[in-house]
């Protein structure tokens, strides 16, 4: 094995270590929720909303700086409320709350970071313009689902 390859291995190992497992769990539930909304599936979205409530509540900010801890607590509280609403609402309401939730999750990631590449996508039509996060470059719109699946564009890549 060449030195370069070994170095790469070490680097990727430290990266993996520094990623926050509980933040990754939140992201994973957020993406499942996004996919359920893309599929116009209210029931599934509600279930994913409940799962997200649980992973948000399990988040542990103690390893972050004091300032970030405050910010994270604020984000988690807000996001939890939106996820709770999503777990008990009809699809229109779920999408309304998903908009603010997406802002919360984007702010969360800006502090915690993530091991995967994320794409912030934007639909100019829904509620005067709304963003969301995705792990794929391809646009699938969670605010409109099958009605306007392709509406939107990638506006930012988060690495």
């Amino acid at each position, binding site marked *: 094995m060449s030195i370069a390859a070994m170095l790469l291995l070490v680097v990727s190992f430290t990266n993996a270590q520094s990623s926050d497992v509980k933040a990754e769990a939140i992201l994973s539930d957020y993406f499942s929720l996004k996919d359920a909304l893309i599929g116009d599936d209210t029931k599934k979205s509600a279930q994913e909303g409940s799962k997200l409530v649980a992973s948000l509540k399990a988040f542990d900010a103690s390893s972050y700086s004091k300032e970030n801890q405050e910010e994270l607590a*604020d*984000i988690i509280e*807000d996001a939890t409320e*939106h996820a709770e609403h999503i777990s008990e609402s009809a699809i229109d309401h779920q999408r309304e709350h998903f908009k*603010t939730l997406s802002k919360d999750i984007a702010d969360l990631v800006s502090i915690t970071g993530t091991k995967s590449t994320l794409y912030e996508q934007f639909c100019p039509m829904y509620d005067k313009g709304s963003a969301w996060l995705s792990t794929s470059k391809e646009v699938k719109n969670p605010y409109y689902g099958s009605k306007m699946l392709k509406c939107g564009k990638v506006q930012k890549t988060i690495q």
Partner: protein
Amino acid sequence: MRIVKIIVLVLLVAFVGIQFIPTTRNQSDSVPSTDFMLVNDVPETIQKKLQVSCYDCHSNNTQYPWYNKIQPAAWFLEDHIKEGKDELNFNEWDSLSSRRKASKLRSIVKQIESGEMPLDSYTLIHTDAKFSEAEAEEMINFITQLKDNL
């Protein structure tokens, strides 16, 4: 006929019985310094509308209707007030972070736009709590402006 008499009697006893079960009353003499109206520059018409249409369930002080002490109505009211305050308490407005305020303001606009708030069960008796189209527009504009200036 006898059975009907017994049923009526049982219901009557139950009705009288439940009157003795206490409920928590949502009343307070003081308005805390964190109140929405105190920390924001709220026009008088908006203040009045908020007071009449929202504050009964979204503050620490309810103007109770005449039937408020009769069960099971009292339970129904207690439940709604508790739920309303959990969601949003205008008296505690300034204790929220900017992020939380923005979320709440957005929800207020959505709830009024969709006509979900005030609740139909509330406006049924409090007819003055209903929003006319002009009142809804005025409120939504004000709340939106507040949100944009956060």
